[in-house]
């Protein structure tokens, strides 16, 4: 990704975050990509790996987005976007589909977030604004619905404040459910010990991230493992 560029940069684009995350998905993984930003990941899945996509509206073996001439209104993903079917696909009803998630059968679920706490709490369904129309969909099921839950987001909000926080101020989607956080500045592991920086983007330093987030971040950048734990 950034390796073929002349000068190192200190932040990734959304596409680069997606590409980096995709590289961590092992061959044979069953994966669910949340609506919005996470769907970008499907563009970067390594060609030499067979990764099976689940969509919670009742399908395994989902293929790429359908283009005109191939749009079937009965074949959509959770974002209600027309998709395609790969050989070896299967269909099931909502009871079975969410049982599959809740039962921990998916290897990875990738989600977007408003905020993530250092311990892996997730807030991604509501800003808590008093006049907002609430809608949760499958967010809370996805948050607990895989062996590993990855979040991808920009580390800072448009206003510049960190979205990786000590404790979420927005309404929670799930408690201690996020295992790993992929951002434009760094990759973090989140667990009962708090946030550990696994990988830095460009010349970003752990101290810079400590300043930005206001958190005691563990430095795990000397770790070598880069793949799905």
């Amino acid at each position, binding site marked *: 990704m950034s390796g073929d560029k002349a000068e190192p940069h200190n932040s990734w684009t959304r596409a680069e975050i997606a590409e980096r995350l995709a590289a961590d998905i092992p061959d044979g993984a069953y994966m669910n990509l949340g609506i919005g930003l996470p769907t970008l990941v499907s563009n970067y899945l390594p060609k030499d790996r067979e990764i099976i996509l689940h969509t919670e509206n009742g399908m395994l073996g989902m293929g790429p987005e359908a283009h005109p001439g191939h749009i079937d209104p009965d074949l959509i993903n959770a974002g209600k976007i027309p998709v395609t079917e790969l050989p070896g696909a299967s269909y099931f009803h909502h009871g079975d589909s969410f049982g599959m998630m809740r039962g921990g059968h998916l290897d990875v679920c990738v989600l977007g977030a408003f905020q993530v706490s250092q311990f892996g709490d997730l807030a991604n369904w509501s800003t808590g604004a008093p006049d907002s*129309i609430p809608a949760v*969909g499958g967010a809370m099921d996805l948050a607990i619905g895989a062996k590993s839950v990855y979040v991808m987001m920009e580390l800072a909000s448009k206003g510049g404040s960190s979205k990786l926080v000590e404790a979420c101020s927005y309404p929670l989607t799930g*408690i201690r459910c996020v295992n790993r956080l992929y951002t434009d500045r760094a990759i973090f592991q989140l667990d009962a010990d708090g946030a550990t920086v696994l990988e830095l983007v460009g010349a970003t330093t752990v101290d810079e991230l400590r300043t930005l987030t206001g958190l005691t971040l563990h430095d795990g950048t000397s770790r070598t493992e880069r793949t799905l734990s």
Partner: protein
Amino acid sequence: MISKTRSSAAEALADIPDGATIMIGGFGLAGQPVQLIDALLEQGSTGLTIVSNNAGNGETGLAALLGAGRVKKIICSFPRQTDSQIFDALYRAGRIELELVPQGNLAERIRAAGAGIGAFFTPTGFGTALAEGKETRTIAGRDYVLEHPITADYALISAYRGDRLGNLTYRRTSRNFGPIMASAATVTVAQVDRIVPLGDLDPEAVVTPGIFVDSVVETGDRFEREEWADVR
């Protein structure tokens, strides 16, 4: 001889009383029982409680039912959409009650109603605003919320093929809530593209056995409809 075939959606829905709880299948447009919803709009019952994943899109179907003031409460997971303006306005005006349920809990509560489960412990939603006031329990180190079944007087669902016994098959992701809603309602009405002779459906591939279905209405081949132009 059993025949669950009804000549029209209107006939199948004629007896729905005011105040009924009605499940409506579909996820977005896939599996939405369009003709049955239109017939429900026509039928006139009011004070309804609707159980459905969404709360209507645009100005037709479920949105029109809401717009006509016929729905007092909706139980769903995802009411807010770019074109949910009718629901949004009613909700902001305090003219519709909303029970918001995480999608998987919605599905499992419907499934529990059909399967005679009195209540169940689910991890989804634990520690969130949507579990406030609900009983919780830690089992084998994991935290759960107790959730109860959602039953209904009617389920209106859309399937692909049906027979006179009410056996149903679906097509692709339009299956979604159909099978579990069929099991949870006192009366299930299914619209199908085509009613086929008994024995035409492969017994291994029947998704909803007829025991869950009370009425089947043939609505014609979906591929003839405008929205299928692309794959026709």
